[in-house]
């Protein structure tokens, strides 16, 4: 999806609902070679695992599974789209740009693609953690793999 044209709020909603209702990457891995990290929250019910498979310094697959609200489900599912096929460095860069966007700092939107739909999360402060917990977990996992 190009990000050069303006997304309307209606389109953004549809993207969130689509990834929530029909997540592409919500499953436990069936094959070998995956590493995982658990993430949960004290202020809400979100409780899930993030998995990646890496080859030659690249993320070749990313999955997640567990219990999560709309915001954490959709944001984590989109995250998986964003990191699959990426080198560790560029995946971490994307995650950092996303975090900057959520935290209302300057960010590079060219790498965010659909993740841009979470631009308004700050309106509901209690959900900022939901929108970032999968991303924080993924960053930790990738950085561990990169070492």
């Amino acid at each position, binding site marked *: 999806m190009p990000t050069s044209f303006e997304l309307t709020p209606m389109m953004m909603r549809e993207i969130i609902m689509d990834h929530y209702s029909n997540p592409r990457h919500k499953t436990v891995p069936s094959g070998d070679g995956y590493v995982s990290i658990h993430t949960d929250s004290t202020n*809400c*019910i*979100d409780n899930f695992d993030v998995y990646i498979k890496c080859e030659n310094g690249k993320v070749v697959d990313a999955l997640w599974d567990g219990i999560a*609200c709309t915001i954490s489900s959709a944001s984590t599912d989109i995250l998986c789209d964003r990191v699959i096929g990426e080198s560790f460095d560029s995946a971490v860069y994307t995650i950092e740009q996303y975090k900057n966007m959520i935290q209302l700092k300057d960010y590079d939107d060219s790498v965010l693609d659909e993740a841009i739909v979470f631009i308004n999360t700050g*309106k*509901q402060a*209690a959900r900022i953690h939901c929108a970032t917990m999968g991303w924080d977990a993924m960053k930790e996992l990738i950085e561990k793999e990169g070492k």
Partner: protein
Amino acid sequence: MFDPKTLRKDFPMYRNSIEMQGKPLVWLDNASTTFKPDCVLKAVESYYTHETSNSHRGDYDLCYNMDMKIQETRETIQKFINAKNSAEIVFTSGTTGSLNLIAYGYAAKYLTKDDEILLTEAEHASNVLPWFKVAETVGCKISYIPLNEDGRLTVDNLKKVISKKTKIVAVAHVTNVLGYIAPIKELAKVAHEYGAIIACDGAQSVPHLPTDVQDLDVDFLAFSGHKLCGPTGIGVLYGKFDLLKLTDPFMTGGGMNSKFDMCGDVGYLNPPLRFEAGTQNIEGILGLKAAIDYISSIGMENINHYEEELKKYAVEQLLKTGNCTIYNPNSEAAIVTFNINDVFAQDAATFLNSKGIACRSGQHCAKILNDYLGVVATVRASFYFYTTKEDVDALVDAVKHGKEFLDAYFI
């Protein structure tokens, strides 16, 4: 009967027209905590502006007066729950502190590996985890009294599981998710027949119902100040005096011993002072007295009656929307636990927030109950005497539009 709208004038949180998300605040999280009336704030402030002094530590008038005030508060609480003796009233940090005191000070001391503690699946974490710790320490068993199909605790079900091994029955008078009133008096009778004691979690009952510990014949009762318009950080443990005498202090230090020497020979004071080591939460104690005087002046019967009516109204109106599932339509307490159809509880609560409505979502600290309900999470709206029908209407209106929950981020 009282008028909630008139009473609201006593509360700065209402007078100050607090807003959330640019909308007038609709406070429906009273099972979590409650607003404070002027008289409570004044009592707390007065301690710092006119009455500052420690208690039982000085030979001067301010200190003496403070001792008298603390004793007066004990007597106010004694009357409020109809305890036999003001020495049966122990100040704690809250319900959690009180239940931990029973667990560590009594249960861990007297229970052995052959004993059993009975709980229910509907208990709050504060009435589960301290008992888990006791079981871990002494090796005793934790068992659960089955709830009936509505989620209610019944005397018959207690009879099915209680045995001579049961030493403690620890249950809530009103459960914090489903809001059923447990038949505590009858449960206590059965527990006593088996030689067990009954420890009652009164966090959700004492603020809302008349409480008579002698009539209920509970051995221990725990409750919090902040859920009945008092300050946070102050609560009460009621215990029958003979049991309190058998109970060890949870903390030791100043103000709770009668003597000690370098050989480690220590004499503890009698209850309640034995359990009140260190400088107490004096502002909290004074605020608690003001809060109890305030709600007593409204009348606990009146509060109970009003909340029952409001609960019925809320259930009726919410069901009319056809857009939600209520898990406790028939429970007595002013707690409605529900889900907006096809909307995850947390998303629903965020949507309600966007409408200025404060409700709790999640497992409400009763994490084992959700297995029973068969849902991951629920939304809980809980009322108090100052909650109005208009507050309920605001909730109902939001629930009607629940499918638009992503509006919370885009409008």
